[in-house]
């Protein structure tokens, strides 16, 4: 049971808004799916092998993919440019948004969807910048999916021609499999991780469009070969757009900002 509203929803994602402790909305996947299961007597005959084969040839993630396409259509109709930010926990997704949004905001409207298993901490940090933000709490879920984003974007007051930043749950594995309807995927890795990370999580780096190496202010203190990391990332995906920066000092941020402004002007 949900301890906020007492409803019977078990697990599942919840939307929250910073500073509005009474706001909370469940993302319900199985609204009227299963239900009428009934038990019955077992006959004593056996019919193994008497079955009929039905061909499906259906993508396992079809439902998510279809919904992601609907999100994409919504974004396109409103000229919203959506980015899906992906990384391990602590690589600096929220810090980067905090640092870059104030500059971007002067050029075009920005909105943010925050994904975390628990808390509205990240949404609170973004709220302080004065941009529309909504928090998705996935509970036990380790990734955002297209349904959560679909519900969240309808609750978010977004202007046309906005940049929408979606911060995914910190995890380099399954968020790669779930299309949200974004225009581009941005993967962030920091210099306190290993420079072989792209080789360890190839699916994520293969799916990404942009790779950001963060925390370069710490390079003098850690054993991390930035050139090697870049080479590893390029081996997995030679189309990757590469940036090196520090969300703390702001070093290298201008290049990313200019690149994003260019994308916003084109799309």
């Amino acid at each position: 049971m949900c301890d906020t509203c007492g409803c019977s929803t078990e697990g599942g994602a919840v939307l929250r808004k910073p500073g509005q402790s009474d706001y909370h909305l469940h993302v319900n996947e199985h609204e009227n799916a299963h239900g009428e299961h009934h038990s019955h007597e077992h006959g004593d005959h056996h019919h193994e092998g008497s079955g009929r084969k039905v061909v499906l040839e259906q993508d396992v993630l079809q439902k998510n993919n279809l919904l992601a396409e609907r999100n994409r259509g919504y974004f396109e109709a409103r000229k919203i440019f959506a980015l899906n930010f992906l990384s391990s926990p602590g690589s600096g997704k929220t810090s980067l948004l905090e640092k870059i949004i104030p500059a971007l905001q002067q050029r075009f409207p920005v909105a943010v969807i925050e994904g975390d298993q628990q808390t509205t901490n990240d949404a609170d940090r973004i709220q302080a910048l004065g941009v529309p933000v909504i928090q998705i709490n996935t509970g036990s879920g380790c990734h955002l999916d297209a349904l959560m984003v679909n519900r969240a974007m309808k609750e978010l007051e977004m202007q046309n021609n906005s940049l929408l930043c979606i911060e995914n749950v910190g995890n380099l594995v399954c968020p790669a499999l779930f299309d949200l309807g974004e225009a581009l995927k941005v993967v962030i890795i920091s210099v306190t991780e290993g420079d072989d990370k792209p080789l360890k999580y190839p699916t994520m780096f293969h799916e990404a469009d942009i790779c950001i190496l963060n925390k370069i202010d710490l390079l003098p203190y850690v054993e991390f070969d930035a050139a090697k990391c870049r080479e590893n990332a390029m081996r997995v995906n030679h189309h990757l757009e590469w940036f090196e920066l520090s969300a703390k000092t702001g070093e290298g941020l201008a290049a990313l900002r200019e690149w994003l402004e260019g994308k916003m002007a084109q799309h």
Partner: protein
Amino acid sequence: MHEMSIALSIVEAVEERARQEGAGWVSEIELLVGKLAGIEPESLKFCFSAAAAGTLAARALLAIEEPEGVGECGECGMTFPVNFYYAECPACRSLRVKIISGEEFLIQSMTIEEEEE
């Protein structure tokens, strides 16, 4: 964990179709999970039994076929087996390799039994 939500989507898709077909229950599900798809078949099987409990697929056997990864060189056109996305062409050493097989993630078919057991 993501295998759990994936197992749930498989059960949901299978159950929906099984109902349309008027099935009593589902005895087998055939999946195609490419070696590069990012899915661990063993943990998928493990999650499946939990996800399918109480559904038409509760006693379904999960048969998983795992196509090997195959890459095609963008420079010389050669095709060769790949285990990972960072493949290198064995003929010309190019890294411009396009994956042409191994990323499949499909529900191929299911076997339905007409009568409820």
